[in-house]
């Protein structure tokens, strides 16, 4: 106990956090598939972040590409060839990653925050709070998603933030329901009774017992919401509802379709953004599942 007496509570807490972080990394290293997914995700994020430093946004602006060859096949000069305006596809995909990832993450954050807030309030407090919140949730849940998103996107105007808003506002209800059902079961647990018997108030119980126990669920939901958000952004951009001043993967696919790249078999235009979407979506999903398994101590060491 002598070595215990020398450390401060804060140092002790940090030591425990470091230990759990190390344990987390150890578990992750054993899961090769999750590690590969993480590498893929990091790669895409790095590419998206460094895009402005390694390339120039103006290089694939139509007014600057008049001298470029059109429909050039992939080569040393144009890694992924060029499109019908002579724009480099590689550059478009690179810059598209920025928009797709940003929308995916931002819309997910909005979804998760709204959904968790509503879900915990409804599940924990119950009664009329639950009834009111769940009717609102139902209302959003029964609205057909795509028509509503299209209407909202066209009413609000075609900007990046509006896309984020549209995705967030239409996808939080499922998270809310998921979280609520978990909270309903959690609040009846014996350890919640024990926390109350110890003298803990509502804030303590929500903060220490309810929230940490819905986190894995929320994380799993998050890692599924990111790819869904990316796909939704792709869908909306493909339908011509994206931000016209920005290039996103869905937008590239839309332009590839308009330029008849598919029927003329110019695969280098539609394949790269499609593969990028699939890779990011798949990596997020696999990594999310692995994360969930690691963060639940009962699933660990089995």
């Amino acid at each position, binding site marked *: *106990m002598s*070595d*215990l*007496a020398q*450390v*401060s*509570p804060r140092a*002790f807490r940090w030591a*425990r956090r470091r*230990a759990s972080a190390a344990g987390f990394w150890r578990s992750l290293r054993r899961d090769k598939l999750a590690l590969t997914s993480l590498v893929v995700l990091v790669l895409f994020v790095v590419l998206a972040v460094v895009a402005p430093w390694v390339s120039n946004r103006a290089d694939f602006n139509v007014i600057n590409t008049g001298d470029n060859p059109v429909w050039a096949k992939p080569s040393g000069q144009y890694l992924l060839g060029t499109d019908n305006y002579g724009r480099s596809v590689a550059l478009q995909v690179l810059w598209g990653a920025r928009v797709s990832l940003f929308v995916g993450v931002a819309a997910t954050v909005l979804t998760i925050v709204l959904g968790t807030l509503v879900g915990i309030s409804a599940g924990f407090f119950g009664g009329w709070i639950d009834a009111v919140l769940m009717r609102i949730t139902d209302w959003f849940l029964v609205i057909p998603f795509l028509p509503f998103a299209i209407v909202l996107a066209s009413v609000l105007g075609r900007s990046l933030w509006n896309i984020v808003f549209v995705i967030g506002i239409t996808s939080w209800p499922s998270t809310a329901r998921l979280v609520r059902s978990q909270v309903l079961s959690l609040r009846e*647990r*014996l*350890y919640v*009774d*024990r*926390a*109350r*018997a*110890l*003298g*803990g*108030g509502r804030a*303590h119980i929500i903060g*220490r*017992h309810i929230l*940490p*126990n819905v986190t894995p669920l929320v994380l799993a939901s998050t890692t599924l919401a990111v790819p869904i958000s990316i796909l939704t952004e792709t869908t909306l951009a493909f339908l011509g509802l994206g931000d016209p001043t920005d290039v996103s993967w869905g937008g590239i696919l839309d332009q590839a379709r308009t330029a008849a790249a598919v029927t003329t078999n110019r695969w280098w235009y539609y394949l790269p953004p499609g593969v990028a979407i699939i890779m990011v979506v798949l990596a997020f999903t696999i990594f999310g599942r692995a994360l969930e398994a690691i963060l*639940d*101590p*009962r699933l660990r060491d089995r």
Partner: protein
Amino acid sequence: MSEPVLSVTNVQVQFGGGSVRAVDTVSLEVGRGEVVALVGESGCGKTTLIRSIIGLEPLAAGSIAVEGRPVGRGRGLRALRRKVQMIFQDPTGALNPRHSIYEAVAEGLRIHKVKGHEPTLVAEALASAGLRPPERYLRRFPHELSGGQRQRVLIAAAMALGPTLLLADEPVASLDASIRGEILALMRSFVDTRGVSIVAVTHDLGLAWNIADRVAVMYLGRIVEVGPTEEVLRAPKHPYTQALLSVVPEIEGLEQQILTGETPDPSRMPSGCRFHPRCPLVASGEAERLGIVDRCRGVDLELEPEVGAHRVACHAVRA
């Protein structure tokens, strides 16, 4: 007896919007350093009673006072809760699986902002509950411990707050027979060394015999007999207590009485003495011979009002 640590006065707990009285007008006092066992069949309201003492079930009527101060609502409640701690039947369910043993014990210390060096307090609490050396347990998680060790963690967490009253809901029912004695001895040691009082709920009369100073027998939400352990278990007066004891193999000299039928549905409480539909005295005609059978069927009764050590709620005993 000096000022009681706990006094429960005419407490009622209702479920189902008042249709079921799980605890119906119960009064009980517990002195300092006293161990009281609440015994009875399952469904008699003994767990509900101690849950109401710690505030997990709202009172429909009556009052509860700890060290003479009534337990109310709001701010005073938190300070009072530090005085009363509870351990549970199922130590696995009572520990959050995501919290390490350190966090489980520190939880109460943080809620009540106990002064002192937290890691030291936690380690001392674990050591006092027999988890030695404590450093070995701090970083572990509940699923890595045995049932007995988990119960020790709960006891450590409860005792870390220095309570004057420890409520125990079937503290050893879920444990191996070989561990039970150790846990009971541990609880008893806190009575001797720290003067804590214990109210232990159990259906095991042997447990009551081993650690309790007094025994209270509950039937359908009421205490039907209360008194010193020796007297109640050696010379039970209430026919229900007699029937309970007669089926304990270690106790000889009582004719075995198997109670027929289930405990009645508490939402349709029998009139009169609530035990009379199953009472062997009524069934055998003994009550009729004593001329009290009409009272058994029609007159509700509580514990004898006169203050004595050994009190019973039975028309036959009063006749």
